[in-house]
């Protein structure tokens, strides 16, 4: 009998007559389906103000976020200064082939840029990601509210400075020396501490490729650690004091409390922030790199967006530049979706 009832979900088995009859609820469902668009129209008409409010935002995003994606078509077309992208001649995958397996210096430059993009972000994940968590743990130790506010105000501050101000200060503080002037004050301090030799400092740290990654990460932590700690600190102060007391009674030292009380409580926050970080792994800020790098440091500093900027905006090779960015962004998007899926499977926490 049970399998007969399952014959179709809109049919009911009538035991008295031994026949099937229509489920009366199905008529209602049919009616809703038949009049779906009418229903939608009525709902929209009733709440038309809401949709009017939504329109300007949608238009702005459409024009200046989605139309550029349409311009990405240029990576399959022969670049043309006059014609719009839809009318350009189809070029197939030639730009992609040239970038990926071209075998010439251009292809080598692209792979260098791709590797640098990945490495800069990866080191950012390795050093830049734990920094705000550690800072939040330290903030939690400060019992005096006034002291904590002072620390917080000071550490949030760099986040509000522009990239130009930050990079200009960096440039000036590690400046090269010349006949009429000495090296920057940070270089001088590093020389005094014996970390770098005098000649290295004199040549300017930003002119030497081996220092670029370190400078990028240190300025990144300087800029973002304090501000990034807000969300972790909020998770930590939400922990009930009784949890600590219970742990203390059980004989847990400071490290054990960290391990068994604090860490599990902020784990979901950490996972969410980690997903956003991994999602941004290939979309590192081009502004900062553009402002810090120079032709001496391309080996370690050139990333895909600066590569594209050099070829597409300063140069005239728009199709090639679009192709390089498309490769980068597609891989980046796969990383977000992948990270999100893994996080959802592993810990039931996900961002999207």
């Amino acid at each position, binding site marked *: 009998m049970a399998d007969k009832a399952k014959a179709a979900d809109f049919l009911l088995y009538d035991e008295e007559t031994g026949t099937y009859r229509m489920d009366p609820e199905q008529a209602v469902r049919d009616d809703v389906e038949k009049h779906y668009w009418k229903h939608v129209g009525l709902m929209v008409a009733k709440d038309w103000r809401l949709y009017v409010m939504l329109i300007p935002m949608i238009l702005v995003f459409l024009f*200046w976020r989605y139309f550029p994606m349409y311009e990405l078509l240029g990576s399959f077309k022969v670049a043309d200064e006059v014609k719009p992208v839809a009318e350009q001649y189809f070029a197939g995958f030639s730009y992609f082939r040239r970038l990926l397996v071209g075998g010439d210096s251009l292809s080598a430059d692209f792979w260098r840029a791709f590797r640098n993009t990945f490495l800069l972000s990866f080191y950012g994940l390795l050093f830049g990601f734990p920094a705000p968590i550690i800072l939040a743990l330290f903030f939690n130790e400060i019992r005096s509210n006034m002291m904590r506010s002072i*620390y917080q105000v000071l550490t949030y501050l760099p986040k509000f400075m522009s990239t130009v101000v930050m990079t200009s200060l960096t440039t000036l503080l590690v400046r090269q020396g010349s006949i009429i002037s000495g090296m920057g004050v940070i270089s001088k301090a590093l020389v005094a501490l014996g970390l770098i030799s005098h000649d290295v400092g004199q040549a300017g740290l930003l002119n030497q490729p081996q220092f670029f990654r370190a400078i990028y990460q240190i300025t990144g932590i300087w800029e973002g650690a304090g501000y990034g700690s807000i969300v972790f600190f909020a998770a930590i102060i939400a922990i009930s004091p009784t949890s600590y007391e219970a742990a203390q009674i059980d004989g847990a030292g400071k490290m054990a409390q960290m391990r068994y009380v604090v860490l599990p409580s902020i784990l979901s926050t950490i996972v969410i922030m980690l997903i956003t970080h991994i999602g941004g792994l290939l979309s590192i800020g081009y502004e900062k790199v553009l402002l810090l790098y120079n032709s001496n440091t391309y080996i370690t500093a050139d990333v895909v967006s600066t590569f594209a900027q050099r070829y597409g905006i300063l140069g005239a090779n728009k199709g090639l530049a679009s192709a390089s960015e498309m490769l980068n962004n597609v891989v980046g998007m796969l990383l977000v979706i992948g990270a999100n899926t893994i996080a959802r499977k592993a810990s039931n926490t996900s961002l999207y």
Partner: protein
Amino acid sequence: MKRKLEISEFIFKIISYTILTIFSLACLYPFIYAISAAMSARQAVDYAQIVLFPKGVQFEAFARMFNNNMFWNSYSNTLFLTFYGTIWEMILSILGAYALSKKRLLFRKQFNFFLVFTMWFAAGIVPQYLNYLATQRIFRKVGIYDDKWLVVIAMGMAAMNIILLRNAFEGVPSEIEEAAIVDGATEFQVLTKVYVPMCKSTVATVALFFGISRWNGYYWARQMISDTNEHPLQVFIRLLLEQYSDPDQMTGWAENYASDSVIYALIVCSIVPILIIYPFIQKYFAKGTNEGGVKE
């Protein structure tokens, strides 16, 4: 047992205070150094002899900046971009976030995806550049020749900020909205008289984010604003830095302040407005960030 506990806590506390003090001072130091270097004599700046306080005080670097028309020009351009840009972004995002926060909005999921997708996938700077060029052509055709309006209207708008606002609006209990409607409020009045005041700290935070990013905007302003008189402050700082880091420009400098002092003075001038408003909004934004925080 008890005593051992206290020692581990005590050590951790000491470490916390030490590291936080060092890190806070490191955050502050470049700004103090910039102020001191802007006011120090040439010798002290050129050979990096300043540690904390200015040496051989002079105010000529500041005076040189203040007598420069380009400086005031770029300052007013930045004020223009920040003011109109923030207003434009706030109006659009408050309206949009309010609509998105309503459960009765049809295709709500699709609209949300429309926003969130822009956080996953961005076209990149070259397609964006082509898009802005096309926009610029359309603006010229319509009769807008001031590229600052292009920057105001076409740039900015972060999906993240709209989601912050939306989450905050979702937290407002629907009974309050119903009560307002019973009292005869229109949809728009519900938004301005109920929702915005109730989510004051998130609205302030988002306005701060938009305002700061406008004040700090550099790359697209430099690329898209063709008239150098219309350049904002950040572009002016960068151009000056590029000009002065050229060794040919530096030799033959016959003033009694270093060329770097001029840039330091400019940097100080550009961060002063942020430093002035920062303490007032600082208390809002930690609260606002967490209130609207990521929920979905």
